[in-house]
């Protein structure tokens, strides 16, 4: 029994002694910290997600204070906190729309398999084995490296086997974008609803043969768009979010259903009929005008 008491007392005294020395040392070696750093830190998300590229929220706060990082460096904290940080730093509040992550692939079960991958359930490992188990070298592998990277529970593997983002929970921290070995996840404005769900840059036939929901770069959407807001770049359609007004005309002409929200066959038929009627009307008007011109000439 005395042994136990000795042990407790001795270790307690030792601990107290070292604690005292440390307390004194902390006064002697105190580093003057800018009080603004604490203030900035209180406005960061505090998840230590590392999305900003600095080691933890403390590192980010120091970087913002030093001017190395913008006041919006912490995406998860949101616009309100960015404005508060800007005020601490004595800057104008930044303006900008909330952005969320978006996965540019809905292939999954539609994509052709090249082989059965049985290794570690991790996208990076899977891509190391002969370039990945999918025929499509751009497609989402669905092993969920991004799901694991997400600190906010905003990512999941959807029912068709590709990763999907919950825009409500997403803070656009960028962790998933770094985790994806195929760089499929991009940041898009949260208010925009029309997105191209494929990143395949192959030529039409090659893209068509590997997946039934791939963008083949046919350019129909580009022709259809009245606002010049969608373009085929490097063999894949890309939405220009600054110009897109969300009219969804492109979704109705896409032969591959690679633009969301996907238009139903019914909607497509209806649109086709409207277009046909319009074309006929235009042709008739043209004919009438020609006839009238011919009549007046006579």
């Amino acid at each position, binding site marked *: 029994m005395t*042994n136990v008491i*000795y*042990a407790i007392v*001795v*270790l307690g005294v*030792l*601990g107290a002694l*070292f*604690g005292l*020395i*440390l307390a004194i*040392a*902390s006064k002697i*070696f*105190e*580093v003057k910290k800018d009080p603004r750093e604490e203030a900035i830190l209180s406005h960061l998300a505090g998840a230590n997600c590392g999305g900003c590229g600095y*080691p933890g929220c403390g590192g980010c706060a120091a970087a913002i204070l030093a001017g190395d990082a913008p006041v919006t460096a912490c995406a998860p904290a949101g616009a309100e906190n960015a404005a508060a940080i800007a005020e601490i730093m004595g800057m104008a509040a930044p303006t900008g729309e909330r952005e969320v992550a978006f996965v540019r692939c809905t292939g999954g079960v539609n994509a052709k398999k090249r082989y059965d991958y049985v290794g570690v359930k991790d996208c990076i490992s899977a891509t*190391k084995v002969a370039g990945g188990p999918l025929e499509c070298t751009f497609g989402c592998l669905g092993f969920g490296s991004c799901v694991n990277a997400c600190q906010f529970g905003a990512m999941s593997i959807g029912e068709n086997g590709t990763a999907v983002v919950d825009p409500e929970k997403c803070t656009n921290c960028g962790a998933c974008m770094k985790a994806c070995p195929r760089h499929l996840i991009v940041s898009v404005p949260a208010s925009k609803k029309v997105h191209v769900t494929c990143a395949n840059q192959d030529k039409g036939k090659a893209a068509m043969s590997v997946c039934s929901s791939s963008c083949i770069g046919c350019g129909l959407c580009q022709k259809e768009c009245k606002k010049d807001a969608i373009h085929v770049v490097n063999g894949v359609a890309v939405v220009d979010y600054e110009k897109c007004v969300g009219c969804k005309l492109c979704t109705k002409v896409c032969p591959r259903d690679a633009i969301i929200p996907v238009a139903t066959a019914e909607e497509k038929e209806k649109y086709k009929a409207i277009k046909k009627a319009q074309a006929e009307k235009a042709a008739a008007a043209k004919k009438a005008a020609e006839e009238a011109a011919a009549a007046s000439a006579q």
Partner: protein
Amino acid sequence: MDQIFELLAITLGAILANNFIFSQFLGICPFLGVSKKVDTAVGMGIAVTFVMGLASAVCFVVNNFVLVPLGLGYMQTVAFILVIASLVQFIEMFLQKAMPSLYTALGVYLPLITTNCAVLGVVLLNVQNSYSFISSVVYGITGGLGFLLAIVLFASIRERLVFAEYPKAFEGFPIALVTAGLMALAFMGFSGLKIW
């Protein structure tokens, strides 16, 4: 004279023949973690040397004047960890004040010295070998110097590895582990070293 020979034997043993990294495999975590640049490796090596030397001295005092007289030898590990943790905290504060650049360069590996098994290893080996106070301190410092030597050699090799051609699958840690293994083999050459 005998004592000088003993200290010489301890020194050579700790730095070369029984190098903490290459033949006792202690302290591998910071060895792999902070060996990407020679500058930070030197900083880490010096910090570890400092902690090891101080820890050896303080732990000798704690062990021989507190624990052993009270029959608490079995509490060694706990007491030593307490000492090491406080020392590391102290050094962290000191570095933050005196050498902020080194403090940021070492980053998370500085507090990790707390759990660096090379430090705990050296103080436990001191007790196991029943070294005197001077021998303990010498063993601590030279053990740290051995760590410094190992990490600096390793960091210089890793810096040059950038220019080497090796299969892509070996990029990063795999090639570092292969390198460390080869260096451990090389250090085995010292194992027959005897002073008398």
